[in-house]
């Protein structure tokens, strides 16, 4: 006689519903609405800049980004004809931003390493506060300092660079005028972005898993050997992410660059020479006297800048979230 085993019925989870009270629904509604304000604002920025810049973009087409000339002609009848090409300023933006990265990234990584692994507690606290303070300095302060304090020194360095390394293309100059150059703008920008790169690098370095650090030491590594074997591979992603955040900041810098750079609408890779520009400071420069047509073009330029910084920041944040916050 066999007894069939009772069929098992898999237990089913009860569906629990909670209808929030009216007051909570209102609360959640308000909070959610306000949170979408970010989306609204960003979209509005894109929309309005596009609407005002549309005619320019339509006229110039892709040439807006690729052409080099920016001229407005007003003839006697008051009719404006113009050609707007942003290329020179886009290249200029990239040139000074990369000079800034070139100086800021090594300095920031060194400082971050110093703070995480070498600095005694007191010095660490002071230096960290100082760097946080740096991040709060207004950009016009960097402009003033860059023009009056840094420039005389940087001019001297530029002359030295030209004297010893002038045979390299970028250090060559067509005329020996070394003030208000991309080189100087790059230095000022680098000081501005050091805080963000240092703090992101510091955060990722301090998250280095202790067990790997101990493994390296137990194998007879010196502190530097340990840093090379464990910290730097672990922190590379964070450093890249932080550098891109700095890059995004450098792209959009306006008054600081305007103060120390002679804005001329020509592509210039002779970084020691007094000629350059970036999109943001160009907008400021031309705004005062811009007629209706040019204002449209400047709006379009603003749109290009907006999209560019958005893209860089998006990429940067993706990298930072993946490497720093998740503690790879």
């Amino acid at each position, binding site marked *: 006689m066999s007894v069939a085993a009772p069929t098992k019925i898999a237990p089913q989870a009860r569906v629990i519903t909670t209808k929030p009270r009216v007051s909570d629904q209102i609360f959640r509604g308000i909070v959610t609405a306000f949170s979408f304000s970010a989306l609204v604002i960003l979209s509005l920025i894109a929309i309005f800049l596009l609407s005002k810049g549309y005619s320019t973009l339509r006229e110039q087409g892709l040439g807006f980004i690729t052409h080099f000339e920016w001229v407005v002609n007003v003839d006697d009848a008051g009719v404006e004809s113009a050609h707007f090409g942003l290329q020179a300023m886009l290249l200029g933006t990239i040139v000074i931003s990369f000079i800034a990265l070139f100086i800021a990234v090594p300095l920031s990584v060194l400082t971050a390493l110093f703070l995480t692994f070498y600095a005694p507690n007191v010095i660490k606290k002071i230096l960290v506060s100082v760097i946080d303070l740096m991040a709060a300095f207004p950009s016009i302060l960097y402009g003033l300092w860059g023009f009056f304090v840094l420039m005389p020194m940087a001019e001297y360095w530029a002359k030295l660079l030209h004297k010893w390394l002038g045979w390299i293309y970028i250090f060559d100059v067509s005329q020996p005028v070394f003030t208000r150059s991309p080189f100087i703008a790059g230095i000022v920008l680098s000081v501005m972005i050091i805080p963000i790169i240092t703090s992101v690098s510091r955060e990722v370095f301090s998250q280095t*898993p202790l*067990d*790997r650090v*101990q*493994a*390296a*030491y*137990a*194998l*007879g*590594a*010196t502190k530097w*050997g*340990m840093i090379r*074997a*464990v910290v730097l*591979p*672990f922190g590379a992603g964070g450093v890249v992410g932080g550098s891109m955040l700095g890059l995004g900041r450098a792209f959009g810098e306006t008054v600081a660059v305007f103060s120390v750079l002679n804005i001329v609408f020509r592509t210039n890779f002779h970084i020691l020479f007094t000629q350059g520009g970036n999109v943001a400071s160009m907008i400021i420069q031309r705004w005062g006297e811009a007629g209706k047509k040019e204002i449209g073009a400047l709006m379009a330029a603003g749109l290009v800048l907006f999209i560019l910084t958005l893209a860089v920041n998006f990429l940067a944040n993706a990298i930072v979230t993946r490497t720093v916050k998740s503690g790879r």
Partner: protein
Amino acid sequence: MTNSETGSINQNGTQMSEKENAKPSSLSDVAANRAEKKVAGTAPLGTGLEARGVHAWFDKHHALEDVSLDFSAGTVTALIGPSGCGKSTFIRTLNRMHEFIPNTSMAGQVLLDGRDIYESGIDVTKIRLQIGMVFQKPNPFPSMTIGENVLSGLKLAQLKVANHDELLEECLTRAGLWTEVKDRLGAHAGGLSGGQQQRLCIARALAVKPKVLLMDEPCSALDPGSTLRIEETISQLSKSMTIVIVTHNMQQAARVSDYTAFFLSDGGPGQMIEMGPTNEIFSRPRDQRTENYVTGRFG
């Protein structure tokens, strides 16, 4: 300690089956079994490691008091005792890892081949090459391949070796990992299982040819199968080096060690209560506290 079975023991197999057949009923039996099977060590290296009057402090807190232990060359010593009684702290004073924690201090001497490793003027990184360590949680370097991991100690110490491949094979074989990874030395270390990773860490420690190997609860994060493999490895390794192993598992201590030291803290600094041949500690401990611990009355 007899070694009448010397001729008939082959590396792993025979010992395993004999262990299974013996089915020991108590720790002391296990220890006695091991004592019988221990093969006389071949050419012991140096004069071993000796701790004399070692104390350790964390800030003002006195964590370890007056520990003196002599680890003879070619032996395996287990450090047992309840949590928090200073075993890990002590083992970290043996390879000068204790000083990495901020605000720590120590007293006493640790002699390797008769020379105090805390002497002034000594190159501490060289000491750590001679006294290796394997940690509780396997910690291979994830950014390196399996092969690179094993040789990483050489790179860090900038040691030159004539034949990398030979050394790779030798270390991985001694760690009991060679057959499993010989075809994928270029794969990343993160893909290995926990037990394999720990054996990789052992291979890595072996590559710099240490005289002493310190193991801080090397099996506590692993499954029983891996644990047994590593215990076999330990037995093999003890023929050519001195091993000190911290363990919470008394059966493991009985299986694996020649000598055992019992640590205890009564709320104050940790102390080494008793040390002796393993089978004696488990069958005829001299101190009442040791007996209480090994018979499971506490801890």
